[in-house]
């Protein structure tokens, strides 16, 4: 079966711009961790779909705004995470929980905005939802219900696992010369670990690439027809799931295990969650620790992988927990490097006339994503 994806989907600036508009500014995008927003004036800031966004705690209420001052367009909050009022460093404009500049220093003397103009000054506010400890933002003016994008079982699973995350989080970035979509294609591919990670991940965990005959038949049925809005939403919901992906063999009981509250639903499995379009969560040890990864589009041939590691919630004070997180981050890096190298291998082979990919039966989910994606990009439906 030939893929629907064309080389331009991985190479074209126009396609990239269209993705930013149609996907990253219309879908619910993972933004950060609620545990980093626990106190008044805690904030997180980063860009989504090219738009700088800040999520700020206002006396317990979380709000998402465009992180651009209305005066001279300076970024209001910086540094990814912190605790300070929503106050621009450039000229001191201070914003309230509605996004209005409640304080403009020396307003009457030097600004003299009229009442109507002053009343119209308001930061663009975005929709925000939390699923357990995971914060999502939607930049659309009329955001779709989250239930259109994520199924109830998926949200239950995400809520359950994320509520077991500890508040101490290690973070790092890994740039790569690959299109962001290759990451999700790679993560959906249960056949790649044995070839890409033979001495690392696949040495300890055996992943399978099963052919779900019912799902394969359903995918082909949808592909043969003309999906309506209901089918489109069902397709989209099917792109996100959380599963016990592979059984774990015998493992040591590390000292730090006794200090954390293992995820109650965790068993002896390597767990994977994929949340479309670009979020991956894994627990490689059955619920003692979790890695959260997000492949952020930078350019058609460039992505930035954001990596977070958390332990399950601490039961008691454990001074060496930073050392555990540090070890997790550095220990997981070789696997991510191997994935990045192979995605770069794919990207470097792509050109305008490159052959279209050939897909096997086990790649039915990718075919479903591709149909949905290419139909969206080609304007056959709208979100």
């Amino acid at each position, binding site marked *: 079966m030939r893929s629907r994806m064309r080389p331009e989907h991985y190479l074209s600036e126009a396609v990239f711009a269209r993705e930013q508009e149609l996907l990253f500014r219309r879908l619910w995008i993972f933004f950060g961790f609620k545990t980093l927003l626990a106190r008044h004036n805690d904030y997180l800031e980063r860009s989504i779909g090219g738009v700088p966004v800040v999520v700020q705690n206002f006396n317990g209420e979380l709000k998402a705004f465009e992180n651009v001052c209305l005066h001279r367009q300076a970024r209001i909050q910086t540094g990814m995470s912190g605790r300070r009022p929503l106050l621009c460093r450039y000229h001191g404009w201070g914003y309230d929980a509605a996004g209005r500049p409640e304080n403009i220093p020396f307003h009457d003397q030097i600004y003299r905005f009229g009442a109507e103009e002053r009343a119209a000054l308001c930061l663009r506010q975005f929709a925000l939802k939390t699923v357990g400890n995971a914060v999502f933002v939607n930049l659309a003016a009329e955001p779709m219900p989250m239930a259109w994008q994520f199924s109830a079982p998926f949200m239950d699973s995400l809520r359950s696992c994320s509520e077991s995350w500890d508040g101490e989080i*290690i*973070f790092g970035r890994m740039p790569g010369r690959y299109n962001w979509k290759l990451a999700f294609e790679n993560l959906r591919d249960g056949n790649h670990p044995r070839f890409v990670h033979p001495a690392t991940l696949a040495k300890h965990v055996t992943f399978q690439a099963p052919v779900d005959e019912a799902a394969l038949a359903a995918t082909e049925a949808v592909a043969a027809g003309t999906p309506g809005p209901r089918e489109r939403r069902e397709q989209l919901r099917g792109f996100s799931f959380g599963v016990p992906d592979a059984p774990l063999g015998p493992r040591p009981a590390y000292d730090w295990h006794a200090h954390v509250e293992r995820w109650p639903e965790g068993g002896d499995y390597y767990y994977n969650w994929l949340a479309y379009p670009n979020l991956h969560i894994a627990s490689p040890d059955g619920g003692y620790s979790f890695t959260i990864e997000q492949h952020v589009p930078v350019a058609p041939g460039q992505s930035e992988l954001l990596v977070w590691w958390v332990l399950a919630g601490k039961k008691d004070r454990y001074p060496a927990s930073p050392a555990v997180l540090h070890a997790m981050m*550095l220990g997981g890096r070789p696997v991510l490097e191997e994935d990045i190298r192979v995605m770069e291998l794919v990207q470097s082979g792509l050109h305008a006339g490159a052959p279209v990919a050939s897909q096997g039966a086990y790649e039915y989910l990718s075919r479903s994503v591709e149909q949905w994606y290419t139909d969206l990009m080609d304007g056959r439906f709208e979100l």
Partner: protein
Amino acid sequence: MSSDASNTQTKLVIGAGDFLDLACEAWRALEPDTAIERIALAQDDAYRFDLAFLAEHDPARVTLFAACDDTFLNFKRLELLAYCRMRGYRLPPCIAPGAVVAPGVKLGENAFVGHGAVLAPSCRVEHNAVIGAGCSVGFAARIGHSAWLEAGAVIGDRAEIGAHTSVGSGVVVARGVKVGKLCELRVPGLHRDDIADKTYYNPNYPDPLRIFN
């Protein structure tokens, strides 16, 4: 010159890796009349030390030195130190021959100063900190407990290195700079600004890793 003026006749140097051998050499040179016994520690698959052998020795007659490197943000060495202290052992600091330590500089328990390191007046080296060969620690600088300075690291006057922080070779911490605890500075270069706790400069990442909360 010995770092411990007691009449102890046996010293166990326990640990692993290159630092174990380095420490043994330093103690043999410092205390030629002391029986220095090198003990390479085994670890199980959960990284736990096998320390049962300590029960065979008398803390009143034997001193120890814990010689683990900066594995696990220096917690393994601290774990060893704590275990030995709880059993009543003394772990005097070690100043290797060739180190230049200004008069009055105080070293904490189980601290180590390597060959050719220079410690300026008024600096402080807290317990379990390791200063590698050829390091330079400036006037009134402070090296926190369980810190690790690789060979050749340079710490400026009045700078502070937090507890459990590792500073790699080729790293220079400018005068007055405060480096937090539980950090790693592994990328050669000059640091002129304070560094927050739990920040990790690693050559495999373009930006430092950070731990939040």
